[in-house]
């Protein structure tokens, strides 16, 4: 990231941070918070997805993050300040258990997608099967705290949540850039091109893939935990299972898989779309949003596989390159 980009990002962050102090409309703030939290979740998916590791199991990691935090709070009274780290450890463990054999035995592409799909299926089934503790498919609510809201990480004011969500979103973008600038990125790109060649060049393929998978899984679980603390209601359909996994993939593909702000654009587009459809069609018409989602996903993959932001940036860069080429040619023309 160049100095100019950094300044731009700083200004953007400041502008966004000021929003809740001048604007108080709760519904709009609620939408902004949702966009920020989901942007973080989508960014964490894209950490793996951009290297060709298409996981359909991230719904599972999100469910682990949300349910572990809520269950520890309700049943053992463990504050989310401790519960969330525990949930992240659980997600990391789950990621290792599933990903290690996959990577060790070279399970890639279709196979990997299907194995991870199974993972989100398992988490969904376990949540449903343990309905005595988790409430099953009816959903689950963390108990309202009687003591300090800070200890229980429960806040009623939308402004507080907005700032928390903004901080988390910035964290996601920063992690994206850190990985983007690291050697891991080059290693992962080499691996996604050709595993054998990468291994021959001295890259520890399994370790590299595991590292990125664990980062991605932990971030997703964190998104789940925060979503749970904010919404104070989770159900298997909203935080785990195949639907959520596909929703992540869809948003990232729409926004742009290979650019830092792609997942954010994806979150903005999909959440605004869902809200508009919900308000436009009313509550009686459940399913219309996913109908449009589905068609759009197919159309995007057919015609705009790089996503909205990805395609825009590509066009912009091509133009800049053309401009630079012209500049370079101009003196040559003058001398001839």
């Amino acid at each position, binding site marked *: 990231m160049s100095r100019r980009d950094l300044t731009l990002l700083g200004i953007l962050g400041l502008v966004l941070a000021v929003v809740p102090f001048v604007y108080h409309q709760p519904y709009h703030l609620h939408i902004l918070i949702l966009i920020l939290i989901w942007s973080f979740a989508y960014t964490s998916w894209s950490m793996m997805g951009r290297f060709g590791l298409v996981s359909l199991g991230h719904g599972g990691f999100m469910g682990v993050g949300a349910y572990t935090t809520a269950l520890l709070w309700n049943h053992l009274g463990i504050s989310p300040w401790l519960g969330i780290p525990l949930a992240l450890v659980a997600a990391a463990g789950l990621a290792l258990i599933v990903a290690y054999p*996959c990577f060790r*035995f070279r399970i890639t592409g279709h196979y990997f997608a*299907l194995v991870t799909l199974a993972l989100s299926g398992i988490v969904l089934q376990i949540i449903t099967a343990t309905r005595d503790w988790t409430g099953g498919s009816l959903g689950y609510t963390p108990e309202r705290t009687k003591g300090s809201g800070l200890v229980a990480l429960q806040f009623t004011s939308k402004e507080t949540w907005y700032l928390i969500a903004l901080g988390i979103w910035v964290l996601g973008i920063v992690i994206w850039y850190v990985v983007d600038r690291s050697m891991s990125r080059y290693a992962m790109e080499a691996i996604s091109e050709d595993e054998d060649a990468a291994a021959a060049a001295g890259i520890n393929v399994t370790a590299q893939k595991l590292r990125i998978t664990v980062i991605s899984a932990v971030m997703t679980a964190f998104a789940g935990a925060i979503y749970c603390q904010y919404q104070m209601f989770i159900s298997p359909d909203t935080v785990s299972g195949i639907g959520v996994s596909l929703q992540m993939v869809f948003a990232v593909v729409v926004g742009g898989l290979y650019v830092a702000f792609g997942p954010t654009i994806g979150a903005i587009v999909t959440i605004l779309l869902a809200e508009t459809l919900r308000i436009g069609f009313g509550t009686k018409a459940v399913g219309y949003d*996913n*109908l449009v989602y589905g068609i759009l*996903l197919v159309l995007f993959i057919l015609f705009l596989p790089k996503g909205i932001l990805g395609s825009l940036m590509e066009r912009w860069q091509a133009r800049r390159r053309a401009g630079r080429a012209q500049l370079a040619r101009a003196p040559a023309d003058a001398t001839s």
Partner: protein
Amino acid sequence: MPDFLDIYLLEAIINGILLGGVLALLALGLNLIFGVIDVTWICYAELIMMGMYGMYYLSGVYGLPYWAAAPLCIGLVGVLGLLLHLLVIAPLLDTPPINQLLATGGVLFFLQSFATVVFGIEFRNLGIRLPVLALGEMNFSYARLLAFIAAAAGMGAIWLFMTRTYTGTAIRAISQDRQIMPLMGVDTRRLYLVTSAIGGALAGLAACLLVLTYDVHPFIGLTFGPITFLICVLGGLGNFIGGFVAAFVFAQIISLGGLYSDLEWGYVLAFAFFILMMFIRPQGLLARRS
């Protein structure tokens, strides 16, 4: 009879075998598509859901007899498979396989919501309740038995088609070497279409059988989808015999797990077994030598 072989255990084992037949049929269609076109239809179970709705409307609402509605329904889902290939898969054949996978994910979303919007979220059934077959002290539902027999017949027909006809032989050849077949003068485009139609028809057949035992609702696909994928992966994607064996292994685990606890725990056990097997035999139960 030895002590451990009590009557409930025997009943669960036989029910597992019956379930295995249906699961094997589910896996067969998906395996066929994967083996020949090298594409995973994530929305496969949603095609089955559409087929179940087809049966519900043809037989339950318009009053066609079951034996007349079933072939119609199989044909309809076959056409759906054809359309899926023409509209979504064919334009994406030259792109990375992940794109194809995601596009069919989009179709999954689409079909689910389409069913929600058009058919509503109510649980529906045919209203046919087949009697229960009592064998000594064991009870088996006729629906399951019928499903098992039809699944076996369907698989037999596919086997005959694949081994005894020219088209079937060409399909098997393609699944062995995708690059060389076009050079041998085989029209891959046509074969892909035929395969997609057969894959769809198999989903239709599964739908006709499942509608006898399950109520249909827009999210029924989520009940069968994951387990079907697991079976295909466990058997080795594209490996028909492996898929067949895996289906019966899975069905036993679900059935026996369900005997000792809830049905969901049967599924959880099956999933756990699956992950264990990924460590032991990552390329599938009967790995093809490469």
